[in-house]
């Protein structure tokens, strides 16, 4: 292999170089800005994590698996997985191999940015070597891989259902430009390399095409324009990249180490949030996932659009989207990049200023004396007071199991604080937490039993109750059953379906215990979408703006999902889900406790 051109330059590389330099500087500056936006301790933690070998290795692994191979996507949808990884990985390999070639054959050119990309233009093959042949083969192979990927992408554009996606995002103008330039790049590269195959060598793909072209066009002068086109396509792509969804390519490479460093969203726009927003590839998986999408008017309220609005600085819409969300957390569950949509919205809510700010200074914890000495303290919570069946069943189950339990709020108590937290009003939530903590401490209990996942989550995440076990009744009763303290007789004739409440499932990762417990009482079928993918009942306190009639379809859709297997009854473990479903239910909706209570003998 030798240089064909003495100066190793040709004007057609200029478009590429312009784009390349632009993109590098843009990302460089952007990176610094974001780094600067991080709080001091976050920055410190991040930089340290980069040099720490453990996290460093994790970073490399994650970047390779997520950005190039798209493992998560493979798990979710093979077609999409293959499409994305073929393009990403293929392209990556082509670049790597390009550099290797330069490094091996014309090391003195290694410093030229464009050389590895347009290698085949600048070199001439003197004699065929195995080494060269291998390289040419790999090059062609990966190019073919990419072309297949591109092909699939085109099909996806036309028929997204073909990929099992019901809805996908509508691309903006720049996105489209980026997309088409991206599509153009690789066919063009194929052309270029085919044209020059007889000079600079080629393999199973390029050589035959080269022969065909030579036979077709005769002379070989017309290959220069294609190299121009190739370079221009690359240039355009890189010029528009920062302003399109393709920004996720560089952004995700920063997001992964940041996440591995344990950074969290602190401000809805700056620092980590910014990089999250940029990392959103706009794939639109969250649109189908979002329970609100059953109403057409809500289609543009899911996380992918939140990210887009944040990039467009559309304050009105950002607020609207943030307040509408049910905070069920499904979007972040399914997100490939791991964008934490709910947290972004929460932080957005925290920015709101209020002229009336609630306080609870006038409420004294000792006005809630907890009688008795039982070690188990049962906090029913606001919602459970409106679903007496749960409260009654829970108390009866406890007595059946011979457990001495007391109620913390027999005649109504204070709110756990989660609703305030979800409204982004930490100050108020903290005050409620302080009050409740005092009450619980004064009771001298060692176990805090909860029937409401909303309460359970905040007690678990935000309360400091060291020495006291915070447990949800689904878990607790399951233990009692497994340990034999609670005798439950199985009704073989009755099939139940379990609805995973958002706060309990995605929120606290409790999926199996309730099912185990229910299995003791009846046969269990699964909902169409279940566990981490269960659909919010629509009653969530998370949404601040959705009103009753607008939640209707959400509930109906969630219920339909549950009753796919035609169970005799729907079982949930959350008073709010229970209440919401029973408004529209065509079959009994019961709380786990009630089912167990009916099935257990005293």
């Amino acid at each position: 292999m030798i240089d064909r051109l003495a100066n190793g330059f040709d004007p057609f590389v200029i478009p590429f170089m312009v784009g390349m330099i632009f993109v590098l500087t843009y990302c460089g500056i952007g990176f610094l800005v974001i780094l600067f936006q991080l709080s001091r301790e976050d920055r410190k933690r991040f930089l340290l994590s980069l040099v720490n070998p453990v996290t460093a290795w994790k970073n490399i692994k994650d970047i390779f698996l997520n950005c190039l191979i798209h493992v998560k996507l493979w798990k979710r949808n093979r077609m999409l997985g293959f499409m994305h990884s073929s393009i990403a990985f293929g392209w990556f390999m082509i670049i790597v191999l390009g550099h290797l070639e330069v490094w091996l054959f014309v090391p003195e050119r290694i410093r030229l940015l464009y050389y590895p990309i347009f290698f085949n233009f600048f070199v001439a093959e003197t004699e065929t070597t195995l080494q060269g042949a291998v390289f040419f083969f790999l090059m062609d192979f990966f190019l073919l891989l990419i072309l297949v990927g591109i092909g699939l992408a085109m099909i996806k554009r036309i028929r997204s259902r073909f990929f099992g996606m019901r809805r996908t995002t509508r691309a903006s103008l720049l996105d489209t430009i980026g997309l088409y330039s991206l599509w153009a790049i690789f066919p063009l590269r194929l052309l270029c390399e085919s044209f020059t195959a007889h000079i600079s060598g080629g393999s199973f793909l390029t050589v035959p095409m080269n022969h065909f072209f030579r036979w077709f066009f005769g002379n070989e002068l017309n290959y220069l324009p294609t190299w121009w086109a190739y370079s221009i396509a690359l240039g355009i792509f890189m010029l528009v990249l920062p302003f399109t969804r393709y920004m996720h390519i560089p952004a995700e490479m920063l997001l992964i180490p940041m996440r591995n460093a344990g950074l969290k969203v602190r401000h809805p726009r700056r620092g980590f949030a910014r990089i999250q927003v940029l990392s959103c590839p706009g794939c639109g998986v969250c649109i189908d996932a979002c329970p609100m999408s059953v109403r057409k008017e809500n289609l543009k309220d899911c996380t992918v659009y939140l990210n887009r609005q944040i990039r467009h600085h559309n304050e009105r819409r950002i607020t609207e989207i943030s307040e509408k969300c049910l905070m069920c957390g499904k979007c972040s569950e399914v997100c490939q990049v791991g964008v934490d949509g709910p947290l972004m919205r929460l932080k957005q809510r925290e920015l709101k200023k209020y002229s009336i700010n609630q306080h609870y200074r006038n409420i004294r914890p000792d006005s809630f004396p907890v009688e008795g000495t039982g070690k188990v303290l049962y906090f029913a919570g606001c919602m459970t007071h409106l679903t007496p069946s749960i409260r009654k069943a829970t108390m009866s189950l406890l007595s059946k199991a011979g457990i001495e339990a007391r109620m913390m709020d027999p005649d109504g108590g204070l709110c756990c604080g989660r609703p305030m937290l979800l409204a982004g009003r930490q100050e108020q939530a903290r005050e409620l937490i302080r009050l409740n903590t005092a009450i619980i401490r004064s009771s001298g209990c060692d176990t805090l039993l909860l029937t409401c996942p909303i309460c359970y989550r905040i007690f678990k995440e935000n309360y400091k109750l060291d020495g006291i076990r915070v447990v949800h009744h689904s878990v607790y009763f399951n233990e009692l059953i497994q340990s034999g303290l609670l005798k439950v007789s199985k009704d073989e004739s009755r099939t139940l379906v379990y609805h995973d409440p958002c706060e309990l499932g995605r929120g606290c990762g409790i999926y199996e215990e309730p099912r185990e417990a229910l299995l003791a009482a009846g046969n269990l079928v699964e909902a169409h979408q279940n566990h981490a993918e269960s659909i919010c009942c629509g009653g969530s306190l998370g949404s601040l703006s959705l009103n009753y009639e607008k939640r209707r379809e959400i509930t109906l859709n969630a219920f339909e999902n549950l009753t796919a297997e035609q169970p005799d009854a729907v079982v949930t473990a959350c008073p709010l889900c229970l209440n919401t479903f029973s408004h529209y239910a065509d079959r009994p909706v019961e709380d786990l406790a009630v089912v167990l209570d009916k099935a257990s003998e005293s």
Partner: protein
Amino acid sequence: MDFGFTLSPSSAIELDTLDSALYRKLCRIEPGARTCIGCGSCSATCTAAEYSGMSVRKLLLGLQRGKKAEVERMLSNCMLCGKCTMVCPRGINTRRVILTVCRLYDNVEGTL
């Protein structure tokens, strides 16, 4: 000059002069607020009622009757627990009503 007595303010609600700007704005944001039938379910079930006299019914009435000051006191202990929303027979989004009032109380023209 001090006479040892002064004009005592009228207790009447002057419907044609009272300031209902906040209520009107509220209804633009949450039209459901207009549908209250004053059944009192919200007040009865309210977790904060016994501390601050919180009552969405009174809140809505107060805003319509230009009794802003009472509204502020009333809202001071709300915990946003959502029981009122759950029991409202007209399906009013009471939590949104509360948050909206808290937000606009001093600045009716403020946006959400």
